[in-house]
């Protein structure tokens, strides 16, 4: 009799747990708890700082994965877009002391225009050549950051104090919470896009341009959309970066940064959100949280690049789908192993042949 009751409860619970948002909302709650611990001094502030930068990098990587993993467009312009985002915030919110809303509007507008321009270019140029063009664009942006001192304060870098909201500066704790909130919201938005006609259209476009077109998917619209989405994600991440790190110099926004994002997406798995989070941890987080505590790497900080390189080679050689595929394969192996062991035990104990 209680069986019915439990069945009902279990049904509801499993529906909640299996909801695609559930895991990520849980992650957000866990991050909020970690943040609270950091505030209480139970987690070191530097560790928390690296966690929040990982979240920001994840946002960039998610936008990039929509581009690479879904639309199949290779771009190396990520760094430029993120940098532009930081300078928008630094200039409008910092130097000019405009309210937050205006800054956000200007930044998003800039992102959409820039994304549309690059998307338009992508209609003509594909594959490696597109990567080279976007790389060029990124380098141009970097030089602009260096020389356009009124806007960016040049090579010395732009320092940013605080956002103004409702006439008051926003406290750091609120910024930390906002980063977690935006992180979870971006993941949810990405999930929604992936599981909607747009996401499927992007995948169809990646598989075959002509088949996609014959199904009514306009290349122009969706290529522009993919680039606009990626730049909007990058600019949002730039905004959070400036709020968190409070400092931006042109040197950060070079090819290294774009390549690292590319590496994170490739290492983790370009089509899985969990994979991308994993990739960001492997490329950025491992260095910031674990390796820096090892004396060898503290002495030779550049040695971490060797590790990343080896990781990329290994993953692309053995698991082209990314580390997430490795985890999935491992899970399957364990399930099979347990099943096999169970079968053998039954045969030994009960003499069953089936």
């Amino acid at each position, binding site marked *: 009799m209680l069986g019915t009751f439990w069945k009902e409860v279990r049904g509801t619970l499993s529906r909640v747990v299996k909801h695609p948002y559930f895991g990520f909302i849980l992650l957000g709650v866990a991050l909020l708890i970690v943040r609270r611990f950091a505030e209480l001094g139970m987690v070191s502030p530097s560790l928390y700082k690296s966690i929040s930068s990982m979240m920001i990098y994840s946002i960039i990587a998610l936008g990039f994965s929509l581009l690479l993993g879904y639309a199949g467009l290779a771009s190396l312009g990520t760094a430029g877009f993120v940098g532009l985002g930081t300078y928008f915030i630094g200039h409008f919110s910092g130097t000019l002391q405009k309210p937050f809303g205006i800054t956000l509007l200007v930044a998003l507008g800039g992102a959409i225009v820039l994304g549309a321009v690059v998307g338009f270019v992508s209609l003509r140029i594909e594959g490696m050549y597109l990567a080279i063009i976007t790389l060029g664009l990124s380098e141009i942006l970097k030089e602009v950051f260096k020389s356009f001192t009124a806007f960016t304060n040049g090579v010395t870098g732009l320092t940013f104090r605080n956002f103004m909201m409702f006439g008051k500066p926003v406290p750091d704790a609120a910024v930390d919470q906002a980063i977690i909130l935006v992180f979870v919201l971006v993941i949810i938005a990405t999930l929604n896009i992936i599981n909607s006609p747009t996401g*499927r259209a992007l995948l169809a476009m990646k*598989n075959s341009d*002509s088949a*996609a*077109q*014959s199904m*009514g998917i306009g290349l122009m619209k969706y290529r522009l959309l993919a680039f606009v989405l990626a730049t909007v994600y990058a600019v949002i991440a730039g905004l959070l970066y400036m709020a968190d790190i409070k400092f931006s110099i042109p040197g950060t926004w070079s090819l290294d940064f774009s390549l690292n994002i590319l590496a994170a997406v490739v290492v983790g798995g370009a089509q899985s959100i969990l994979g991308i989070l994993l990739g960001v941890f492997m490329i950025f987080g491992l260095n910031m949280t674990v390796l820096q505590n090892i004396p060898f790497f503290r002495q030779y900080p550049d040695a971490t690049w060797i590790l990343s390189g080896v990781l990329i080679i290994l993953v692309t050689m053995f698991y082209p789908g990314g580390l997430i595929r490795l985890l999935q394969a491992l899970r399957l192996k364990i399930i099979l192993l347990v099943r096999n062991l169970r079968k053998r035990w039954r045969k030994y104990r009960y003499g*069953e042949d089936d």
Partner: protein
Amino acid sequence: MAKMIERMLLRFRLSGLGRLRSQKNMIESYLPIREEIVRQRSARAIQWMEFLHEAKMAPLGNAAGRPTATVAAAREAKVQALRDRYRLKEKALAQTRKRAEAKGPLSPEAIAGFEESGRKLVESRDRRIAAILAPSRRSSLSEAEALRKFLEVETEQTEILARKKAALRAKEEKHLDAIRKRAARQIAHLDGKIAALRKMVLERHPAQTGDADLPENVLLRLQNLSMRFGGLLAVDNLSFDVKQGEIFGLIGPNGAGKTTIFNCITRFYRPTSGEMFYRRNAVEVIRLNDFPVHQIIRQGIVRTFQNVELVWELSVLDNLLVAAHTVYRSGFFAQLLHTPGLRREENVLKAKALGVLQTLGLSAYAYAFPYGLPYGILKKIELARTLMANPRLIILDEPAAGLNDKETEELAVLIRKIRDDYKCTIFLVEHDMGLVMDICDTVCAISFGRMLAIGTPAAIQADPLVRAAYLGEAS
């Protein structure tokens, strides 16, 4: 100028008509899904009521020594589980004994020990089963008293339960009725609008024939179509008509330009010269030359490819939803937020996709990924995909390529079925003469881009030019 304005007005009104029709279609197809949701919800409520009833009755019944039906069933299940467990234990004992025997003959003590264990197992099993079937009473009331109370409460509670259930059913019925009525009202409203708009279009716009005199029953007309790739004339001044509701076959030796013609119709190639006219609906004939590739499907022309072009990362069902891309009406922000409207649309289209898969006998593969499925199945999935966008003309590029004889026979039946069930016209290119001669109403034979003959399959088979092109006979 006036003509252009009139044409624009017509386009505008027709798109309005299309929107109204798709709204109506949406309401109609969502109704059964919504009804199912309501029914499920009330079924769950009834289950919960029954559970509460049981929770009230079970302790009383136990005290009175009269287990209720659910309790009895639960006990039965428990007993069965126990029996299974003991059967395993007995098997394990037998196995141990077998292993001991394999080492050498057993001593009398060992045999006695095994038999003793077996006896003990049976004993304990019987004891535990008895304990389950007749649990000790824990009640201050005497048995007779408990029984009296139980019977009293039972009649009362059963009545209450029946009343509540009836009330819930009535409520559900009322709710369903309201939903149906609202849908009917909306549909009637839309019908009125559609009829009015349709009348207006028919009155104000005399049948538009574009630049061609397209007879009523012709769906597609190619007029002096030529396609030149550099020095190669792939299609040479070709003209033919495809009639509404027929299966039209295009045949020709390799390199005759069949696929080039398809690519011209679906606008992947821009023909060097020539016109293509297509009857979009009762009043409108359009010139296909004016449309970009991705707009072709919106006119009701869907094509398949020679090599299977599925999205390998998506399940079969999602592949069908990709093909329904033009049917969706929710915009980007609705998709970003997954609004209820989008979810409704997804539900309707998923139901439609499952229906299509069932028609083609692919239900088993709905949630599978296409990667690694047999080629015949993949071809069928491509065929299923064409049906998602409400097509009027389906263009099949070598549907039987790579299929074995049995699959080809199935395909013939399927193509006819699609034509009849979905009321569309089918235009196919095929090498398999058996298939073409079997299903086509009209066959057109071409060679080196030039028309050899057009007519019924029998006429084509008898045509000396076709025989010469295929068999190299001197004509």
